[in-house]
């Protein structure tokens, strides 16, 4: 409860910063996702009320951009880049390896909520293709061995022996 209040105060601050202007919707959604981690229906209703925008409009904007998440993602997030360069350089095989090893599907999370696997269009690091992002850390020229090892590490499993 206390945590919720704190998040609401932070959101209120963001709304005030933007003077409750409807044109700031995208920026506010960005910040709201930073604060809450994802955008659920209560939150979208809250924002639509604060900005005097129709709920359906807010929902339309949120679902238009793949950046926004409607559901809570796992503790750790792995994002595969599906840009052309990464695709050509075999990001698909890496994604399949992750799906198999950690038993989850792209777009979803593991049953224990520890790990989510997401997709994104180009992250703008094509020279390093294929790219996989593990918890905000970009792994360029990725191989499935390096990536799965890294994921095991962040999940707190076997540390890489050096």
């Amino acid at each position: 409860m206390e945590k919720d209040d704190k998040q609401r105060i932070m959101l209120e601050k963001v709304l005030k910063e933007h003077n409750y202007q409807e044109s700031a919707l995208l920026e506010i959604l960005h910040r709201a996702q930073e604060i809450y981690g994802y955008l659920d229906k209560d939150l979208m209703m809250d924002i639509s009320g604060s900005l005097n925008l129709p709920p359906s409009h807010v929902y339309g904007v949120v679902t238009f951009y793949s950046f926004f998440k409607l559901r809570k993602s796992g503790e750790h997030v792995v994002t595969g880049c599906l840009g052309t360069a990464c695709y050509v350089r075999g990001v698909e095989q890496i994604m399949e390896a992750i799906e198999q090893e950690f038993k989850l599907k792209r777009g979803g999370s593991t049953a224990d909520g520890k790990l989510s696997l997401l997709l994104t269009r180009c992250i703008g690091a094509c020279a390093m293709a294929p790219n996989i992002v593990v918890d905000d850390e970009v792994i360029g020229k990725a191989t499935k061995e390096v990536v799965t090892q890294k994921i095991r590490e962040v999940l707190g499993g076997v540390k890489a022996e050096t």
Partner: protein
Amino acid sequence: MSVNIIKLKIDGVEVTVPEGTAILKAAKDSGIIIPTLCNLEGLTAYGGCRLCLVEVSGTPKLFPACSTPVGPNMEITTQSDKLKEYRKMAVQMLLAERTHICSVCVADDHCELQAMANQLGVDHVMFERNWSQDEIDSTHDFLVIDRNRCILCTRCIRVCDQIEGVHTLDLKLRGKDSQVIMDLDEHWGNSCSCTSCRKCAKVCPVGAIYIEGEPIEHTKKRDIAEFIVERRNRR
């Protein structure tokens, strides 16, 4: 206040209209009918169906007549073999995108998509069909939406926003995944803002939104937006 008057040619006919007029309107005022599906008089232009594409001399690009303003000395062609091919293709893509089967559609014989296909002589769909299988939402007391028949013209969304002033409806997602939604993608029966005014059903060009148990010819009243706007402007 003076409005600049612009001279242009549409299909060889000289036309004079105020600056800023859309090509579609300029053509209509001089009796030239350009085919449309998403456009509806009284609502803002959307430019989604691509049926009103016209040729403008001096550029190989095609322009949507509904949302392109006239320019001085423009020479516009609204009918040509090339345009007809493009229009036929646009209709076929609409037919292929979802599950359009006229014989089991409530709007059979009162459907603008069907009429357009007939008018353009579309006798086959050369694209692979998607055969969408979306759930039909009949949770509202009498309004039903079958998204398999939707052509995403957004008339319902625009009439809800601009005429009824509620904006219950909007689009979610994008591209082929786009869908018309109510509020935060609720079932229609749970909508917190829908006033059940029926305008969406009245203006729907196809059989996607209809009223349960009511003959479609009773429901459809596609000039409702134009009528209301005209009265509003007179006030």
